[in-house]
């Protein structure tokens, strides 16, 4: 019984013998079947992920009546219109919320990039006392509950008189984004061999020059990815934004706090705006996703 199942015939059989050809065919067929199965699974999962997104997009670009209507359908089959979008954008505070979200996300991007470059370079290049502890604490913070941070910070900001300010919210978001940014940036720096920097210095460049002209061009895409990640994180963040702001609501905080008394059209158009940055940026970030998380398990 065992013998017949063995895909590897005795070594003595000639390569063109029927048994060998037969077994090769079998293996190829098996591999083909496996490939097909993989494709099916991949497509099913992709459809499962895309259908809700596309449905909300359809709802965001149709007439308000269609959003209210039943049964519903997808975009090519329902009238295309900017009505829903216009209704959302003309609602109270939405444009300001979009602008606030953009400002906070931009500050977060800049601050986290500025802070993560030296920290990431330090972790990647130098062995200093407490380096492992530093890496570990960066990781621990990554998993830190936003809920636990937000409420004491809100009280603190309130006491310090910087409550409801876009800057304090951006500071909070920077703190949340920094651990991941530092990990990505350090793994990007680590992927550039130090020998390249040394070579630059051999040819007479100062350490800063060789950093500027050799390392920076190589790491720029990775750093941009980590910056975009910080941007998306800030754009998405609901809890801290709702707790730390009152009049200066960001978009997620605005949509969240008006969930219970807003019409569906408002929610769907809001959902569109919440998703669009991540859909655009994920395209650029995706190569660095594994840098972000690959380090975690090491």
């Amino acid at each position, binding site marked *: 019984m065992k013998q017949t199942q063995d895909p590897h015939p005795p070594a003595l059989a000639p390569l063109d013998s029927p048994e060998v050809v037969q077994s090769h065919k079998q293996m190829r067929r098996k591999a083909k079947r496996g490939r097909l199965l*993989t494709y099916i699974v991949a497509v099913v999962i992709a459809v499962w992920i895309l259908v809700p997104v596309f449905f909300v997009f359809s709802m965001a670009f149709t007439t308000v009546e269609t959003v209210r209507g039943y049964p519903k359908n997808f975009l090519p089959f329902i009238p295309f219109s900017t009505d829903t979008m216009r209704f959302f954008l003309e609602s109270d505070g939405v444009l300001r919320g979009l602008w606030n979200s953009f400002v906070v996300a931009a500050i977060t991007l800049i601050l986290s990039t500025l802070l993560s470059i030296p920290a990431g370079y330090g972790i990647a290049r130098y062995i200093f006392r407490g380096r492992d502890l530093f890496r570990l604490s960066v990781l621990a913070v990554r998993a830190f*509950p936003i809920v636990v941070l937000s409420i*004491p910070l809100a009280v603190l900001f309130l006491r310090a008189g910087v409550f409801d300010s876009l800057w304090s919210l951006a500071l909070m978001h920077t703190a949340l984004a920094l651990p991941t940014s530092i990990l990505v940036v350090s793994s990007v720096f680590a992927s550039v061999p130090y020998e390249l920097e040394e070579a630059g210095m051999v040819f007479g460049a100062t350490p800063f020059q060789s950093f500027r002209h050799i390392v920076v061009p190589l790491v720029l895409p990775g750093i941009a990815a980590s910056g975009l990640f910080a941007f998306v994180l800030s754009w998405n963040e609901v*809890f801290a934004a709702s707790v730390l702001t009152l009049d200066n609501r960001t978009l997620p905080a605005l949509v969240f706090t008006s*969930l219970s008394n807003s019409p569906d059209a408002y*929610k769907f158009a*809001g959902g569109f705006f919440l998703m669009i940055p991540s859909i655009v940026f994920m395209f650029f970030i995706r190569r660095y996703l594994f840098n972000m998380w690959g380090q975690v398990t090491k």
Partner: protein
Amino acid sequence: MFFLYPMYEGFVLTVYDDDALLPIRESPTLSGATVAKLPLGTELEINDRRSQEMVNAGSDDLITDQWFQVEGTGVDGSLLRGWVTEARIRVREEDASGQPLAGTVRPRLGEGADPLTKIHAEPNETSSVVGQLEQRATVTITQSAELEVWFLVQPADDMNSGAAAGWAPSSYLRVSEDASRGWVSGATSGEFTTKFIQRMVDDRFFGPALRTTLLLLVLIIPVQLVLALAMALVIHARIRLNSGFLYVFALPIGMSDLAAGILFFSIFTGNGLLNSALDGLGIIDGPFAFLTAETTGWILVAIVAAEVWRATSIMMVIIVAGLQAIPDETLEAAELFGANYFQRVRHIILPLLKPSIQVALILRTILALQVFAVVVALSGGDVVTVLANESFRQYADLRNTNVASAYALFILLLSVASAVFYLRSVRSEAEVRPT
């Protein structure tokens, strides 16, 4: 530092009540030495009153005295300038806005009453006396000041009997009409307390929130683990269009839980996608209301669907990173020995993935404990609630920062507990049996 300090602050908010005790003082000034600290609601006997500088002008219970700065001729004939309480002066002249300009000293009635009125250097009774005025003497009023009344109090109830008497400003006391008795109505000094934790546990949403949170963990995480493994294996197989599939699979990582909540609201709502599809296929006749208070089961299904949709990708990425660390030779060797695909997954890949799976599980559980926008988007936050939502509700709606903080700390506690649980239970073989 940025993380430790808020944590400490959160802990303090949970167990420390800023406004629990009222210090009573040796003398009726804020600089007076503290004689005792009385808890809110202590019954008091009031033995004396005094006017002093204002402590807390905004308080409901504030009792004030008016004092005038007067000029007039004193008993000894010299010109006097000083402060006297409004009760001793009858105002005779006012300007257009009602500001007093001049008056006379009121006579004291009754036997043995002191006919003279003392004038103080500053607007309170403890300041030095600069001179005395005859009764009915005319004075010009140059200034007036509002002063807070302080009371000399002594605890009257049994629990605090024997405590020393001391002075307390009126803004923290509520006094009876004849000002002979009262009780502590405000406080300035804190104490450690478990009452916020108690209030959290007694909250009628605490039980349901905790139960739902744990139920969601149990429902979501196994599904996600299996799905994330499948997705990771698909990505790792490096089929054609791999990069495209990775993009699609990774999309939900960048989505907020609010966006996921809205997505699945659009599917499960009364006239949403699911009803449209079921109706179109003829499975149901007319829309079925999934998201109502009577169908909490369906709300849970919707939350599970949304969470699985949103947060499986991040587990996938961690597991793919782990897969990339498994050398191809190991798998080739297994194949050479005749292991089929599922045997390879079961006996080679899964054991080698243990650290990655551990990290994925810890991260996922901690993040799942914080989810709340999905729940609010799908249930309104009342019918089905979770701990993070309660923390938000206590903070934003009920303005109860301390209880909100207690909820937040409870979530932190659960996070740490779950991390420890995974670290101990998903231990790799080498740790169990060192060789």
